[in-house]
């Protein structure tokens, strides 16, 4: 009996150690998230509801009457809704991000599709080629596009020397150059989840579709595309979300008519030194991105529930 109890104790203490270990493993990333994402976000939210004083933002809690009074200043948010600059910029940010997402999807889908269909032994090489650009600094690659796209850049020079055009095409600082930079930078983030998804697709579904009379084209639309929905959604999220807030690419490749919210943010912080305004702009941007995500997540979980 004695022996039995002591071994039982050993087992239960081992189990509690195990679950402690599990909490630790789960806890660390959550703690990280809390300290480095959620808290800063709350600070930004707090600043956005404050007023700018000469060198710093006003404190939210006022003790002047001996009572703590919470002061919330919605002026920045009011300004965002009234000044056309802001909502036009939001609109164009979302538009450019959407265009980037759609163009990336159109290019990446066939890319990922043929990668997933290529012989198994060359797939790791193809994957590495996708990641190859990451070996060079992002900024350097964007600058390289500049030298390609400017009026006396490589593309214009080559076209003029072979006589296709007689005057340089103005490509730089236009929506075109912006889209080139955005699509170029975000393409791998669309390809990778699509590839991961498509390489798992069971070829027997396509055979079954062909067997039932679907041409390869029909089988693609009716089977491959719906079954790769998860990859399409993941890739689109990975491209769309950072693209909305993109600052560097519009700054370097965009022009005065391709205003994006990242640049407005920068200006508010560093040129106007208006922290509450900049914070409010950031908070609204986060809300704009989170809303469609939340709706999508809700529909997904409802679907999962109806399956169960």
């Amino acid at each position, binding site marked *: 009996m004695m022996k039995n109890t002591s071994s039982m104790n050993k087992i239960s203490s081992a189990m509690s150690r195990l679950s402690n270990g599990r909490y630790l493993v789960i806890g660390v990333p959550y703690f990280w998230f809390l300290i480095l994402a959620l808290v800063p976000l709350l600070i930004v939210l707090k600043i956005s509801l404050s007023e700018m004083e000469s060198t710093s933002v006003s404190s939210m809690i006022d003790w002047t009457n001996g009572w703590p009074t919470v002061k919330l200043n919605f002026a920045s948010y009011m300004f965002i809704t009234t000044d056309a600059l802001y909502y036009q910029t939001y609109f164009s940010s979302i538009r450019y991000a959407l265009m980037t997402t759609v163009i990336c999807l159109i290019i990446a889908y066939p890319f990922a599709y043929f990668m997933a269909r290529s012989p198994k032994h060359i797939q790791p090489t193809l994957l590495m080629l996708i990641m190859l650009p990451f070996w060079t600094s992002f900024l350097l690659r964007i600058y390289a596009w500049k030298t390609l796209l400017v009026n006396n850049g490589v593309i214009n020079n080559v076209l003029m020397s072979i006589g296709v055009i007689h005057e340089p095409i103005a490509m730089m600082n236009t929506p075109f150059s912006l889209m080139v930079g955005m699509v170029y930078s975000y393409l791998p983030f669309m390809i990778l989840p699509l590839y991961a998804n498509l390489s798992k697709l*069971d070829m*027997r*579904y396509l*055979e*079954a*579709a*062909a*067997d*039932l*009379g*679907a*041409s390869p084209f*029909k089988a693609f639309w*009716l*089977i491959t595309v*719906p*079954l790769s*929905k998860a990859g399409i959604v993941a890739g689109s999220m990975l491209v769309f979300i950072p693209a909305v807030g993109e600052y560097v690419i519009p700054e370097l490749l965009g022009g005065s008519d391709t205003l994006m919210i990242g640049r407005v943010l920068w200006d508010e912080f560093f040129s106007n030194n208006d922290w509450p305004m900049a914070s409010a702009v950031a908070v609204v941007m986060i809300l704009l991105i989170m809303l469609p995500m939340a709706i999508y997540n809700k529909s997904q979980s409802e679907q999962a529930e109806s*399956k169960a």
Partner: protein
Amino acid sequence: MATAPKANIVREDLLRVEGVTKIFDGAVKAVDNVSLTVATGEIFALLGGSGCGKSTLLRMLAGFETPTKGRIFLAGEDITDLPPYKRHINMMFQSYALFPHLSVWENIAFGLKRDGLPNEQINEQVEKMLALVQLTKFAKRKPHQLSGGQQQRVALARSLAKRPKLLLLDEPLGALDKKLRETTQLELVNIIEEVGVTCVLVTHDQEEAMTMASRIAVMNEGYFMQVGAPDEVYEMPNSRQVADFIGNVNIFDGVIEEDEADHVTIRSEECVHYVGHGISGHTGMSVGVALRPEKILLTKEKPAGDYNWCMGEVTEMVYFGAHTTYHLKLASGKVIKAQELNNTRDLSCGLTWGDTAYAHWNEHAMVVLTQ
């Protein structure tokens, strides 16, 4: 050859395969010069172990592979070069390949929609198929919400919905557990016969082939070793490989001593076999004598006569409930298997481990294998 003639029905050939060969990567001969005809309404089984070429042959019938050589005809029309989506052939896939994102109803309707049929006709046909496989209540479910047996029925309904001329079944019961397989086998045959569709089925399970098919082709290394009705293949195998592949068998190596029109005697190390029918062979020829375990009778007493018995020690007893299989070690060192029916509640022959037993059989129990 020995198939029972179906009363006055003239059966025409629906499927004709002429000298089909499939070579993969220029070297591997998966299917080697196979010819066959399947009559309308027949259920034809391709039976063989893995890698014997049965699946490749089936995939060529479906159109997923093109033969390297040879032609395939369906109802007289050469379909060798037609893509799968233009053939009047449907297939029930191994582990079904039901579209996971579509409901049962949409899965069954998939083929009909590709034909561009009007909606009422599609509805009508899908309802009919659902009723046929008794899944009307499950029409709105997704495949993953169904049990294995239900999925199998959806797959069957989907492959029958377009009323194919030829139905291909790839290991139709392979994904089901043993108990379910037995009931499903008969159900499947009943449905196929009700619809009246011609069938080619691929299986590695000889019981499945025997219970479902009207004719079996035993395949090995890409060619047909034997084609015939189930009983024919079982009782009259034409080679050691077929005898060995279909069921259990004891094979004695021997030499023909006496070759008469109505009988032959064959001497092997263990005993002298008296076979009660003539064979195509000659005196002095080396042959194999195949004897099925269930055709051997075990006794404690020495049988009368000089032929068709041998003596050995019981080294193993395997109790199966309905029957018991005894392993008998002969003086030569050869171990033979004998299967005794347990027709009383105590083991009827009363033998146990270490006992000396006599195995004997009658003159019609054996098959002489010349190859």
